């Protein structure tokens, strides 16, 4: 069998980064929720906030550690598997990643220790501050890594000399054309991911009749948040799409399976894009739907896939379906959140058991939407690793295919083990529920005790 090192490195990177993205997309939102709870507890003194926070900090710790270890892998894989990309883009991507490490990673790691072990060693205000610092750290991390990623989609502020990109204007590099949209879209996605996880856990406890105060508070906070953010995500996504149309029109053509740019685009509810025949099979479509969304005009034209030669097109099937999965999940989120608001308004939230049963089962929707969204944007950029500048095939390291195949197999084995164990422990923590007697906060000041704090 002849193995293709480019394909194998792509598979390995796709696998390791998809595994990684699960955790930050959850912990960015969750850390903001924990920070909110701790600040609310500090401000109101209500114990219910602290008890909810104690539960979620435990979940956070398990998720965060998986995010940390899978993230370290990525910082080295850029070199081990994509050395020619590093050579080409090191001057640009390097400093952005460097800012991420210095501004975010150390902040998260350090203040997380306080969050995990410091409840009875630091004054309450410092504990709340640590929660805010961790949350800021996760969001800062997203800022820098998305700046780097967005530059790969819409490179700006640089020039290429002798096969190497050189920075000309750092503001233009960081705030490249797609960055504001991508950052807003991803940050909002993280909040929604955590929101639907909290919603599910709250619903699960209400259904089981456990922790009534905590469960109801979680339900209401989650519905309140998602009812604003889920519709907002539709708006941000729409704007992001228009931005993509302006800068990466072929990606949009793949998302819509739009082959012929001389005709207005239909919106395909379902279809099987046939890349060989350059047409869609089994199509169910809304005529001119895509033109209406993208050009705000049923007769509007936008480039089709056939406007570039086949070797310059992304893989249409995966981009097309991933986009539809993301849309479907988004629609569900909006419906679930708004219906929740209606139930709260009618005072029937805690008794509408069918609704609670559904949302208790759909803790995973955010994760699926995030992964689908990343497939859309990353597969949609192919065959380029830096849009119109560097092809993925020219970015790979000089490592034999057999070796990459071996490490890919190892990654799959290790990550599946870690992932199964991690989700098993998270589920058990949730089954255990809110601790009956969470540790009391320090009464006698921060430094009197020299023993190590119990884990909250």
């Amino acid at each position, binding site marked *: 069998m002849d193995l293709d090192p480019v394909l194998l490195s792509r598979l390995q990177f796709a696998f390791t980064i998809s595994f990684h993205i699960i955790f930050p997309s959850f912990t960015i939102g969750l850390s903001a929720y924990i920070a909110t709870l701790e600040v609310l507890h500090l401000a109101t003194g209500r114990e219910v906030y602290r008890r909810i926070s104690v539960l979620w900090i435990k979940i956070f710790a398990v998720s965060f550690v998986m995010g940390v270890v899978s993230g370290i892998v990525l910082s080295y894989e850029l070199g081990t598997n994509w*050395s020619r990309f590093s050579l080409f883009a090191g001057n640009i991507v390097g400093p952005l990643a460097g*800012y991420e490490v*210095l501004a975010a990673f150390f902040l998260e790691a350090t203040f997380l220790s*306080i969050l995990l072990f410091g409840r009875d060693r630091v004054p309450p205000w410092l504990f709340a501050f640590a929660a805010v610092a961790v949350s800021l750290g996760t969001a800062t991390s997203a800022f820098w890594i998305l700046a780097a990623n967005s530059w790969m989609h819409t490179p700006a502020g640089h020039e290429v000399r002798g096969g190497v990109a050189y920075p000309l204007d750092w503001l233009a590099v960081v705030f490249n054309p797609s960055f504001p949209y991508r950052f807003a879209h991803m940050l909002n996605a993280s909040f929604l991911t955590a929101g639907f996880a909290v919603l599910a856990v709250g619903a699960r406890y209400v259904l089981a009749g456990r922790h009534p105060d905590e469960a109801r508070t979680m339900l209401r906070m989650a519905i309140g948040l998602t009812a604003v953010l889920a519709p907002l995500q539709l708006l941000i996504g729409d704007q992001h799409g228009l931005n993509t149309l302006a800068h990466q029109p072929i990606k949009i053509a793949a998302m819509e399976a739009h082959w012929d740019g001389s005709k207005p685009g239909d919106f395909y509810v379902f279809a099987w894009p046939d890349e060989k025949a350059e047409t869609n099979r089994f199509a169910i479509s809304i005529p001119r739907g895509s033109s209406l969304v993208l050009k705000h005009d049923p007769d509007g034209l936008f480039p089709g896939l056939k406007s570039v030669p086949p070797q310059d097109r992304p893989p249409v099937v995966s981009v097309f379906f991933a986009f539809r999965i993301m849309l479907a999940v988004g629609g569900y989120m909006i419906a679930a959140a708004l219906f929740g608001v209606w139930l709260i308004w009618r005072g029937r939230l805690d008794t509408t058991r069918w609704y609670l049963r559904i949302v208790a089962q759909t803790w995973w929707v955010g994760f699926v939407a995030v992964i689908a969204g990343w497939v859309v944007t990353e597969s949609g950029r192919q065959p380029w690793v830096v849009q119109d500048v560097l092809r993925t095939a020219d970015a790979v390291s000089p490592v034999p295919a057999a070796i990459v195949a071996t490490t890919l197999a190892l990654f799959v084995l290790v990550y599946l083990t870690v992932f199964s164990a991690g989700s098993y422990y998270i589920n058990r923590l949730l089954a255990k529920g809110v601790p009956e007697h969470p540790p009391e906060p320090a009464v006698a000041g921060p430094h009197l005790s020299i023993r190590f704090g119990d884990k909250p």
Partner: protein
Amino acid sequence: MEWYLPLIWAAIIGIAVAMYVILDGFDLGIGILFPFSRNETERDQMVQSIAPFWDGNETWLVLGGVGLLVAFPRAYAIVMPALYIPVIVMLLGLVFRGVAFEFRLHARRKLGWNLAFMLGSLVAAFCQGLILGGLIQGLRVENGVFFGGPLDWATPFSFLCGAGVVVGYALLGATWLVMKTDGEVAARGRTQAKVLLVGVLAFMAVVSFWTPFAIERVFLRWFMLPNILLLWPVPLIAALTAWYGWRALEGGREVAPFVSAIALFLLGYLGLVISTFPYLVPPSLTIWDTAAAPASQIFMLLGTLLLLPMVLGYTVMVYWLFRGKVRAGESYH
């Protein structure tokens, strides 16, 4: 500017790597010493002594890797593919030991995650030694691209370095236990540290004789005039440090053994820097050959000057906050 920016960056990355080796060294060392513990209470005590610190410690490894990409992308693009296998295996080791910190808290039966913690630490340490050895012995480069085979790093010398790093980290771990724990764990740490100290000295001696006689440029660096006149105190100070560490272990001191283990590491590190500077990819590419665009180095330097003191500040804060000893039986549950 183009001359001293790479020098500044070499210093920053040198500091980051030294920070990493010392900080993650002692917590990887705890994992390496895990098989010598007697029961779960002792293992909890050992893990507890590093639990608040390990994540921050490991972040220095990310800074080292990313720092290399920032400041010397051409070196990053050669070294990583050349050392593909040890780098990836090290990362997998770190994955296992990292999650073990959390997972063993929640597991009903801890054996599996204890093993993951121990083997992960051991494998990560050994691979770091392989990477070090692979770098010192040099990489085959043509036209700025790695041109060797995927197993070029696998030599007796790199395996020796691997074993040396394992023993060295174990020494840091043992002296950490002397300082941060009490009872049986601390007492055993003291005994282990003495054995490990002798082991580390042996490895340092072998590497110190091996490299100059196997690699000519290292020989010239150390033994040419006037270098030898300037450099002869380095091994002498290392010997004195080891002797001081031994006395401190014998004399029942608690902090001094850890400090002298750190000093010994720094001296070994200094020796390696002396042997290879200014080559970043020996034997062909220097820090100047592999440097990033000055605009990139300056942009990141500004951030580093602002952020690194803050990072050091809150690192110190956490070590201060969680100072004192972890006593037996104090665990999470």
